[in-house]
Each structure stands twice: as C-alpha cells, then as structure tokens.
C-alpha cells in the first residue's frame, strides 16, 4: 500500500500545482501589461487627433480660406464637403487665434455632414467620434456628437478671440464603449 502511495505522491501534486500557478501568473501579468500598453497607445492616438483638430480650427482659416461662403449640399448644385474643403479652420486669417463668426456659424451648420467633416479634420479610427464646443460671451456653438457610453475620452481646451471677447474652444475626441 505504501509503495502504491508513492505513485502519485503529494509532493508531485503540490509541485505541479505550484508550477502551474506560477505559469498562469506570468501569463496573466503579460496579458495585463499588453492591455495597459494598448490603452496607453489608444489615448496617445486620441490626444494627437484632438490636438491637431484644435490647432486646425484655431490656428488656420481653412482651405480654401473662404470655405464658409459656399453652399454644401452634397453636390446637388452646390459643393461637396470632402471634395471641396481641403482643410477646416475657424480663424479669420493665417495668423490664427482670432475666430470668425461666419466660419463658426457655417461649421455648426455642417453638422448635417458630420461624417465628412470628421474625415476632413482627420478624425479616423474604430468608433472615434468628435465633439467641438466654442463658448464665448455666454453663447455656445456646438458641433458633433457629445460623448455617451464612451470608453476613452480626450479633452483639449484652447483659447482664442471671438468678436473681441475671449472664446474657449473645447475639443473632445472619444471612442464608443
């Protein structure tokens, strides 16, 4: 009986269990680390997009510079957003930071072509969405989709002038949960 007991000894079972436990721990730690790196990369990506969107809007007037004067109706006699706007900017001139009321109004109007505008501003990625809020003198001008069920959100706040008053431009780039 004792000799049979040696067959599957307690030592072997404990040793094997300990070994498997260590193996699983290493595997879990590795997966956790990979997930952390991926999330960090995603946040960096969202931040870079948010930063360039805010810069494009505040620091440039867009191309063509008079893009806000055109009628964008998807090509039905008017212009198409993606084909006819090279870049979007809300500034009055190339020097930036002085925002143009007409450009802001047109930008808000372009909510109807949200996906095209998102592409023009370089917001691309799986489930990436954009929300822009320009607030000045108690007025709010909103473009895009406000975050809901968001898994990752990046906020970029910039400041400029609108009609001689301070304007705050809040850009949110977020990803669906």
């Amino acid at each position: 009986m004792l000799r049979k007991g040696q067959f599957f000894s307690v030592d072997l079972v404990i040793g094997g269990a300990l070994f498997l436990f260590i193996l699983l721990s290493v595997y879990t730690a590795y997966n956790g680390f990979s997930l952390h790196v991926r999330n960090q990369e995603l946040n960096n990506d969202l931040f870079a997009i948010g930063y360039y969107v805010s810069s494009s809007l505040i620091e440039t007037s867009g191309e063509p510079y008079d893009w806000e004067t055109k009628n964008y109706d998807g090509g039905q006699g008017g212009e198409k957003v993606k084909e006819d706007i090279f870049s979007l900017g809300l500034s009055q001139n190339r020097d930036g930071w002085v925002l143009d009321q007409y450009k802001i109004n047109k930008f808000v109007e372009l909510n109807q072509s949200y996906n095209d505008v998102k592409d023009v501003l370089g917001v691309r990625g799986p489930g990436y969405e954009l929300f822009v809020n320009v607030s000045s003198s108690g007025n709010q001008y909103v473009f895009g989709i406000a975050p809901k069920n968001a898994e990752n959100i990046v906020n970029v706040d910039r400041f400029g002038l609108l009609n001689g008053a301070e304007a705050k431009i809040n850009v949110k780039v977020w990803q669906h949960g």
Partner: protein
Amino acid sequence: MIKGRGQLGIELLVVFIIISGLFLIILNVVTVMDNNKIVNKAEMDAKTAVDKISFEINNLYLLGDGANSSLLLPGYLDNNVNYTLNVYPEEHVVEIQFNGKRYLGQVITGDVNYSSTGKNIKLENRKGRIYAT
C-alpha cells in the same frame, strides 16, 4: 523486490511524462507570446512610420507657407518586413501596407502632393499645399 523495482520504474516514467507535458505547455505559451511580440513589433514600427509622416504633414501645414523639413523612414520594419506608403489626400489619409496588413494615419489637410518613392522624404509647404518628394 520485483514489485518494488517495477513501481519505481513506472513512477519515474509517469513523472517524466508529466514534466515533459508541462514543458511542452510552457514551450507553446512562450512561442505564442514571442510570435505576438514579433507581430506587434512590426505593427508598432508601421504605426511609428505612418505617424511620423502624418504628424510632419500636419505640422508643416500648421506652420504655414515656406515651412519645410525632411524625414528619414526606416528601410524595413522589424524582422526585415518590407512596406509601402501611400497618401490619399482626398481621404485625408496616409496608409502603410505591410505583410498584407495596413495601418492608417490621418492628416488635417487634403492639399497634399505626394510623389516620393524612397524612404528619405523632403516635405515643403508652398502656399498651403504640402509637397512630399
């Protein structure tokens, strides 16, 4: 005595089989981890390359007329993986293709003239249009 020796031999065999099994499991796990690492390293290199050029295009556009710079992209991605770069201005996209996969970078201007075929790229902003040669 004969029984005892036989049991010892079988125990050794069983322990050997179990240890070999565990060793094979570890080997399999380590190989999968290593393969993932290699794939991820090439993907990371691709992402870095495409980000490098798309960020540079964005920066030059924001800097305005006359701004210029040059970029030296790696000849190959990790593990000698070859790649190709494409720019689709109307889509505001820079694309890198490697190993049948692709990764996209985004740019804030659609006014890009990309004619470079090498990995040493010169970029210039001429009146709002970005030239990459």
